[in-house]
C-alpha cells in the first residue's frame, strides 16, 4: 500500500503543483530516488517524511494537503481508474457508502498484498452516517474525506463531511447526506474499462 499511496501523492504533487515542487519535496524529504513504484514496498516512515516535506514546501496544513489529494484521486479526469473501481461499489451514493466496508476485500482481490485500512460504516438514520477507519499514517482520514467529497460529486449528491474526534485509534468521519439528487452526477458505464 505504501508504494501505491506514495506514487499517488507524487502524481498529485507533480500534476497539481508542478515537477519543480516535486523535486523540492524529494530533496527536503531526503529521498534516495525521485519517483515511486506503485507496486513496490517502501519503508512506512518514508510516507510520513514525504507528507511533511510536501506540507512544508506548500505552506499547507497536513489536513488541507491530504484532503486535496484525496479529491484529486477521484476527480482527475485523466486518470479514471480509481473512480471507476469505486463506482462499482454501488448504484447510488448510499450504496457506495455501504460498499466501503468491503473495499479492503475488493482491494485484496486486485492485489493480494494490498492491505487497505479496515472501515466500518454506521447508518444513524436521517441520512447521517459515521465512518470509522484505522489510519495507516497520521492524517489518512483526510485523504478519505477528500475522496468521499469527490465521490459524492460523482454521484451528484450533496453531503456534509466532518472529521470528528478519533475513537480508539480510529479516525471518525461524520457524513450527512443532504440531497441525493442534487446534481446530474457523472456517467458510469459498467463495462467500458474492459476490452
Amino acid at each position, binding site marked *: 500500500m505504501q508504494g501505491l499511496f506514495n506514487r499517488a501523492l507524487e502524481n498529485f504533487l507533480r500534476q497539481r503543483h508542478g515537477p519543480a515542487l516535486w523535486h523540492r519535496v524529494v530533496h527536503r524529504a531526503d529521498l534516495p530516488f525521485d519517483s515511486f513504484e506503485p507496486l513496490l514496498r517502501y519503508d512506512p516512515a518514508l510516507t510520513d517524511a514525504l507528507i511533511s516535506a510536501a506540507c512544508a514546501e506548500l505552506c499547507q496544513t497536513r489536513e488541507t494537503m491530504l484532503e486535496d489529494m484525496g479529491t484529486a484521486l477521484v476527480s482527475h479526469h485523466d486518470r479514471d*481508474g480509481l473512480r471507476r*473501481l469505486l463506482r*462499482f461499489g454501488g*448504484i447510488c451514493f448510499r450504496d457506495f457508502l455501504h460498499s466501503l466496508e468491503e473495499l479492503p476485500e475488493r482491494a485484496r*482481490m486486485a492485489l493480494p498484498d494490498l492491505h487497505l485500512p479496515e472501515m466500518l460504516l454506521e447508518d444513524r438514520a436521517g441520512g447521517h452516517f459515521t465512518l470509522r477507519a484505522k489510519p495507516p499514517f497520521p492524517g489518512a482520514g483526510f485523504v478519505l474525506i477528500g475522496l468521499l467529497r469527490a465521490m459524492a460529486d460523482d454521484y451528484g449528491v450533496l453531503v456534509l463531511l466532518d472529521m470528528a474526534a478519533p475513537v480508539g485509534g480510529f479516525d471518525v468521519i461524520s457524513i450527512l447526506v443532504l440531497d441525493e439528487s442534487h446534481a446530474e452526477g457523472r456517467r458510469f458505464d*459498467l463495462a467500458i474499462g474492459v476490452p
Partner: protein
Amino acid sequence: MDKGWMSTAGSCVGCITLPVAAMNQLMPMHLHLSACGRITALGPTLAKIAAQAKIGAGGALTGQDFFQLFDVRRPAGVTAMADLSARQGERLHLGLRGGDVAFRGLAMADVSGGIVLNLSFGIGVAEAVRAHALTNADFAATDLTVELLYLAEVKRTVLGELQRLNQRLQGAKIQAEEQALTDTLTGLRNRRALDLRLAQAVAGAAPFALLRLDLDRFKAVNDTLGHAAGDHILRMVAQILLAETRSGDLVARVGGDEFVILLPDLIRMPRLIAVANRIVAAIARPVEFEGHICQIGASVGLTVSTLYAPLTGDAMLQDADTALYAAKRDGRGRVMAFPDLVQER
C-alpha cells in the same frame, strides 16, 4: 414434467407462486413460455436488450413464438417445446436470432405446462453489458456479474501497471549495464573501469605503469574452432593476468582480445619487464579445448607515468600502444617499453 409437483387433486403442493414484479427482481433475464411456446412474460433486462437489438415487433417479445426469436445452439435439436422440456436442468446455449448476443439458459417446467427459462450472459458478458449499456440496476442484487466486470477491470489496471513497471526495470537494467565496471565474459574490469581508474591515477601522486597486451593468432582460433573456443581462451588469459599481477593492480579487457593492466607504484623497468615476460610465457603455453590443441601468443607494450610532464592518460595509452605495435611488428610474442622500442628480456 415432474409429476411429484402435483397432488392428486391437481392443486399445487410445495410450489411457490410469485407476482411478476418479484420474478423480475429475482431473475431480470427470465422468459416465461406458454405450453405452445409463446412468450408470455420476460424480465426487464431481457426486454431492454431485445428493444435495443430491435428484435421482435419493435422490441416487444410478449406474445411471440420463442423458437422464432431464439435459436438454441447447444445442445442440438432443441426446436420445440417438448425438446426444451426434455432438457430441463441442463445448461443451454442460445442466442437471439439476428442479434449477436449469446446467452446461457436454464429451463424448468412450471405447473401449468409452460416453461420458465432463466438466462445469463456467458463469457462474453463484458461485451454484452457494453453493447446494451446495462447498469448495476439491470442485474439481480445477488448476481456477481458486476463483480466479474470489476475484477476484469482491476486485472487490466494491475497488468498495465506491471507492464509499466517491467519497462522501467528494463530501462534501469540497461542503464546499470552501461554503468557497469565489469567485463561479463572474463570477469575482468572493462573499458569504463579502466578510464575511471586511469583518471584517478593521473590525478594522484603515486607513479604507475601502464601495460597493453594483445593476443597473437587469437582470430585464427576463433575462426577455426568457433566462438566457444575463443571465449575459453579469453577466460584462460584472464586467469593468467590475474595470477601474474597483484591484487591492487587493475586488469581490464578493453576490446575483443585487447587488455590493459595498470600497476600502481611499480615503475622499475626490470621488474615490469619480468612481469610482462612471465605473462607472455604463460599465454604462449598450448591449451586444450575439446580435443584440439590451441596455441596463441601475446605481445606487450608498456610505459610508466614518470616519463610524462604533463601527465595525461591518453598520452600513456597512446605510447603503450606504440610500444605494443612495435612488438608485434618485430615478430610478436615479445615485450617492448616506451620510448626505447627494443625487445626487452
